[in-house]
C-alpha cells in the first residue's frame, strides 16, 4: 500500500467515531477491499507493539481504532462519551450477573426497551442470543471479554464481590461512576 493511502487509512480510523465497514474505508482510501483488509492486518500487527496505546478491533466485519483495554481506565476521564449507553450497560450487567438469562426475564424487569438493547448488544457482538422456546437465551461472548480486557466472567464477578466487601467496610459508593456514562434515559436513576 502506498504511503499516502496508508496515511489515509490511519486518518479514517482515527477520525471515525463508530466502527467502519470495509466499504466505508474503501471509499476513503480508494482501494479494493482485499487490499484494505491486508493493510488493516499490517496496521493491527504494528499496533500490537507494547509502546503503542491503541489497537484495531474488528467486530462483525467492522473496524475500529480503540485505546487498548489496559489503558482505558487511565484515560477514560478525557472524554465524557462512552460508547455504551447507560441502558445498554444495565442490560449487560444483568446478563453478567444472571447468565444464562432470557430476553423475557429482562423485559420483565425493564420493559419493552429491552428488545432494542438486546439487539444492539448482539449487533455489537458483546452478547450472543440463542432461540429458547418463545424467547432468547442470552450469553456473553468472547468479544465481551476482549472489550473489557478480562479472561472470563468469573474475573468480573470476583471484582464485584471484592468491591462489595470493600464497600461494606468503607463509605458509600461514589456517584461519579454513573455520571461518566451517557444516560440515554435522560434522568439519573435514584438508587
Amino acid at each position, binding site marked *: 500500500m502506498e504511503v499516502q493511502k496508508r496515511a489515509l487509512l490511519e486518518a479514517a480510523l482515527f*477520525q471515525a467515531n463508530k466502527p467502519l465497514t470495509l466499504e466505508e474505508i474503501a471509499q476513503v482510501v480508494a482501494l479494493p477491499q482485499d487490499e484494505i483488509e491486508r493493510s488493516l492486518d499490517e496496521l493491527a500487527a504494528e499496533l500490537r507493539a507494547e509502546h503503542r496505546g491503541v489497537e484495531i478491533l474488528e467486530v462483525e466485519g467492522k473496524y475500529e481504532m480503540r485505546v487498548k483495554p489496559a489503558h*482505558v481506565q487511565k484515560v477514560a476521564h478525557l472524554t465524557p462519551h462512552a460508547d455504551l449507553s447507560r441502558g445498554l450497560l*444495565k442490560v449487560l*450487567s444483568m446478563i*453478567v450477573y444472571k447468565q444464562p438469562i432470557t430476553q423475557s426475564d429482562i423485559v420483565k424487569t425493564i420493559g419493552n426497551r429491552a428488545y432494542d438493547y438486546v439487539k444492539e448488544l448482539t449487533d455489537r457482538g458483546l452478547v450472543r442470543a440463542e432461540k429458547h422456546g418463545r424467547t432468547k437465551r442470552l450469553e456473553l461472548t468472547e468479544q465481551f471479554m476482549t472489550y*473489557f480486557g478480562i479472561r472470563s466472567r468469573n474475573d*468480573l464477578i470476583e471484582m*464485584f464481590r471484592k*468491591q462489595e466487601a470493600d464497600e461494606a467496610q468503607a463509605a458509600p459508593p461514589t456517584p461519579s461512576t454513573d455520571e461518566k456514562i451517557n444516560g440515554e434515559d435522560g434522568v439519573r436513576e435514584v438508587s
Partner: protein
Amino acid sequence: MRITIDEAGIVDLASKEASWEEVLEYVIHEEGMDPWDIDVVKLADAFRTYVERLGTLDFKVPARLIIIAAALLHLKAEVLILEEEQKAAAAAQAGPPIDLSKIPELQVPVKRAPTRRVTLDELVGALEKAFRTQERRAGRIDRARERVEEVVGTEEQFDVMKKIDELFVRINDVVERLHSGTMPFSSLVPRWERKEIVQSLLGILHISNDGRVELQQEEPFKEIYVKIVEGNAREEKKSEEEHIDENEFVDVPDETPPQRKEEKPK
C-alpha cells in the same frame, strides 16, 4: 538666502569647540539650511577627510559630530513616521467603509467526537446496581409479606370468608339502625385496632370487588364510605335465611300486604 555651508563646513564648525546644539543652530538659522538636506553620509565623509588631514585626533570633535549625526537621523526619522501616520489617518478617513460582503467564508474545523469504552469499574458499578436493585426488590416483597402476616396473621390463621360474613352482619346492623345505605368504614370495625382495621379493610375490599358495595374515599387516609349496591342489603342476605317465606309472598301477590308477615306469628 543663499546657502554657503556644506557638510565639510559643518565639520569645520564642530572642530572649533562649539557645542553640537550651537553647530546645528548656526547651520539652520544663520545659513538657512534645511536639516533634511544635510546628507549624513557626506557629513561622515567630510569628517574622515578632516581627520586624515589633521593627523592627530581631538576626541571632543568626533563626539560632537556623532551627536550631530545622531540628532539629524532622529529628526529625519520623526518626520518620516509623522508622514506615514498622516497618510494612514487620511486613508482611514477618506476610504470607503470596510467591505465585508466579499469575505471568504471560514470552514468549520473538522472535529473528532471520540467515544471511549466503558471501563471495567463502570461495568462493576452497573453490576452492583443491578444486584442491589434485585436485592431491594426481593427484600421489599419479603418485608411486605412479613408485615401483612404480622397484622393479619398467616393465611391459615386469617379466614377472609369468615370476615366477609361478619362484615355483612355489621353492614346490615348499621342499615337498620341508621336507615341509610351508606356508612363510614370506621363504623364497621369492631375495635379500632391495627389488626381489626386491616382485616376489615381486606374483607371490605373483597366485598367491593364482588360488586356488592361501592367504596368512596375523598382524600387519602380519610374516612372510606361504604355504599351498598342496590339489592344487596338485608333482603339479599335474608333471601338465604328466609328463603321460603319470600317465595310464599311472591306466590300470593297484591292481596297480601307485607305487614301480614309480621302479623302471622300472632
